[in-house]
């Protein structure tokens, strides 16, 4: 690019000189005042050491060659130079006369569109070459100096900036590894100094933070210890409390059970009352019949025997009812195998009188081989509760042909399912979720305790490892007891 620039400079310079010569010599050229042309060009060469020669080449006539030392007339132009005589400016590097590497410039001389001839000027390329060489030298010099300067600057830069940065970096690494005793000793008024001071402040801050952290840690540990102790104490207390609560709960449960039993007992007493009413009536009739016959004097041993048998049967029935109820309320302490159908039947018998009183039809459809293990008393309590509830709801809703059906079946996997269903219309959706809540009852106040289903669920699910759930069908409520086969479950005591 520089070379092109120099070429351009040479071209411009040559053009300027040519124009200057032609302008100064125009009159002489037109008047063919060759003396002036020679003299003028001699003067030009004298004042421009970079011009080797000037050739004034008219189209017709001799050419005048002028150089630094002499001038002469040329008959013909050299072929190489003659080829440059065209309508346009031409230039070429030639060797001419005793000159080598001459920048030969040819400028056409035109006056009023008349081609008069050409002006040839031979410029020294020494200056150009010197300039190029100078340029190269300068370039090399500048590059070398720049390189040296860069090296020096880099060296001092490294020492001045990189070293302190490296030192700070190392210190930072040490700090990162946990050593907070290190500090930067760099004290400068520039950015490095600021960095160093900031680093030291940072480490101070970290150290302080660490101390604070350690202090907090100690405090925390102490606090944790204290809290742990408290927790341990609390735990101990909690265990005790839990035990107490469990005991309380058990007591509560026991109370509930007791309440349930009591409620059931209350129910039972009602049932007993119902059960005994008829036999007592019957006994009353037997007694009156005996009394009447005696008064009439027609009391014979056969009549006596018949009525005494009747009375015995009635008393026996009443006694068996007592036994049944007593057995029902006798708490079972041991888990024993029992037959589900038997418990259902026995329990249903207890309520037979009540059911008949209310014209409730009880159907029991239970498989015989449904044997399980548990506390049969509690199971019978559940059955009693379910039947009682069904009875109560049937009494309340008075459906046509009130019926309680008890299904009992053995499932394919060996488990047992007992369904106590009624046709009283079903459990209202609004209370469906609450039926197992303790003390929840739909009966009038004083009529129900609300713990029957709660206890039934406790007994079946907690104590017997089964499930108790309810659903409505088109007719009424269905309470489903699902018991696992005694070989597949453990009974909770």
């Amino acid at each position: 690019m520089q070379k092109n620039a120099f070429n351009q400079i040479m071209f411009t310079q040559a053009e300027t000189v040519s124009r200057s010569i032609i302008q100064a010599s125009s009159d002489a050229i037109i008047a063919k005042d060759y003396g002036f042309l020679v003299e003028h060009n001699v003067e030009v060469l004298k004042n421009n050491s970079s011009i080797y020669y000037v050739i004034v080449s008219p189209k017709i006539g001799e050419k005048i060659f002028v150089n630094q030392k002499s001038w002469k007339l040329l008959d013909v132009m050299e072929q190489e130079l003659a080829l440059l005589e065209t309508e346009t400016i031409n230039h070429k590097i030639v060797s001419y006369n005793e000159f080598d590497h001459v920048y030969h410039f040819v400028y056409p001389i035109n006056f009023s569109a008349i081609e008069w001839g050409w002006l040839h000027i031979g410029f020294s390329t020494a200056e150009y070459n010197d300039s190029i060489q100078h340029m190269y030298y300068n370039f090399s010099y500048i590059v070398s100096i720049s390189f040296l300067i860069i090296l020096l600057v880099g060296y001092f830069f490294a020492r001045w900036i990189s070293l302190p940065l490296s030192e700070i970096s190392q210190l930072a690494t040490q700090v990162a590894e946990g050593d907070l005793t290190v500090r930067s000793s760099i004290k400068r008024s520039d950015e490095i100094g600021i960095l160093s001071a900031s680093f030291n402040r940072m480490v101070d801050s970290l150290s302080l933070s660490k101390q604070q952290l350690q202090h907090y840690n100690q405090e925390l540990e102490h606090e944790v210890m204290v809290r742990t102790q408290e927790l341990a104490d609390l735990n101990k207390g909690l265990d005790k409390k839990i035990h107490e609560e469990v005991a309380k709960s058990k007591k509560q449960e026991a109370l509930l059970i007791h309440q349930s039993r009591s409620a059931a007992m209350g129910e039972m007493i009602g049932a007993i009352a119902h059960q005994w009413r008829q036999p007592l009536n019957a006994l009353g009739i037997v007694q009156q019949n005996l009394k009447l016959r005696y008064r009439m004097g027609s009391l014979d041993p056969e009549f006596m025997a018949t009525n005494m048998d009747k009375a015995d049967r009635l008393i026996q029935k009443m006694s068996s009812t007592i036994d049944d109820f007593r057995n029902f309320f006798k708490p079972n302490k041991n888990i024993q195998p029992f037959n589900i159908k038997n418990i259902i039947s026995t329990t249903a018998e207890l309520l037979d009188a009540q059911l008949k009183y209310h014209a409730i039809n009880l159907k029991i459809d239970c498989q015989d081989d449904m044997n399980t293990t548990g506390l049969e008393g509690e199971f019978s309590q559940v059955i009693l509760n379910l039947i009682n509830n069904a009875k109560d709801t049937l009494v309340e809703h008075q459906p046509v042909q009130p019926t309680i059906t008890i299904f009992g079946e053995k499932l394919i996997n060996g488990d047992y399912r007992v369904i106590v269903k009624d046709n009283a219309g079903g459990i209202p959706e609004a209370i469906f979720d609450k039926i197992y809540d303790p003390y929840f009852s739909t009966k009038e106040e004083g009529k129900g305790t609300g713990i029957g289903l709660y206890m039934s669920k406790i007994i079946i699910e907690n104590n017997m490892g089964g499930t108790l759930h309810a659903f409505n069908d088109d007719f009424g409520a269905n309470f489903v007891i699902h018991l696992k086969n005694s070989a597949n479950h453990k009974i909770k005591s």
Partner: protein
Amino acid sequence: MTYLRLALVILLVFFSIFFNVHAQQPTLNIVYLENGLKDLNKVDKLVALNLLAKEFIKGSDSVTSLVAVNSIVEMIDSIKQGKVHYGILNSYYYLAYSEQLKPFMGPDLWKIQRSFEEKEDYVLVVNKNIDYIDIKSLAGKRLSVHQDYLMMNFYLKYWIKKTANQPVEKFFKSIKNTKTASQSVLDVFFNTSDVCIVPEYILNLVRELNPAINNGIKVVHHSGANFIPALVLTFNYSGNAYADKVRNNLGTLTDTVRGQEILNLFNIKNITPAHHDSLTYMFDIFNEYALLETNHKYVHKAQN
């Protein structure tokens, strides 16, 4: 305020001393008559003249004041006013105004040499095609001459007058004033002119540049080496305390490279002391020409 006044006073005292000292420096006044000495362009000439003037008073504490004037009348006026110590002028002007100048002149006189010869020999050069017999055979020819060479022009005028009894303007068909003396030789070579008159050293220079020129020209007349082209005159000598210094400086001008370079600016080879006697020939032909002129007038008048 007191300090300000003190500062002003100090400044005033300083400047007054400075200017006073400067004013007290002696000044050598040099006048340069441009006509007849136009070898340089105007800008270079002023620079060169100042350099030359400084050489005059080199080594002294004086300063020079150099003035270039366009006319001899102006120069004479300055001389008459006592303002001029040295005058540089073409010899022709000295010849023409010697009566007015002599009363003011000092003893020192220097001649300016444009060649290595102390005096110049003017040669008449004609184209080789010219059939020269004598000066009269040049009548009606084309003349090229550098008219700034006043002595040379005067000599031609004198010789034509003397031999052909005609003024130069009428003798030749045309007179072309060439920019340089050497160009007039080239005009003759290129047949732009038929004849020229140049100092012989000029012809030699031209020949040096192109020896082939000899094939196109021939020298037909020599004036003889009798002419001094320019002079350095001293005036108001009594007021010149540095005359000795200047004399010495001019005498040793060519001894130094600087001195030579300064002279080269004027195309001068040397400035050497001259005796008034060395001007005798010039004065003789000047007077002879005057006489010829006067006689011609009488004859012309008589004829009419």
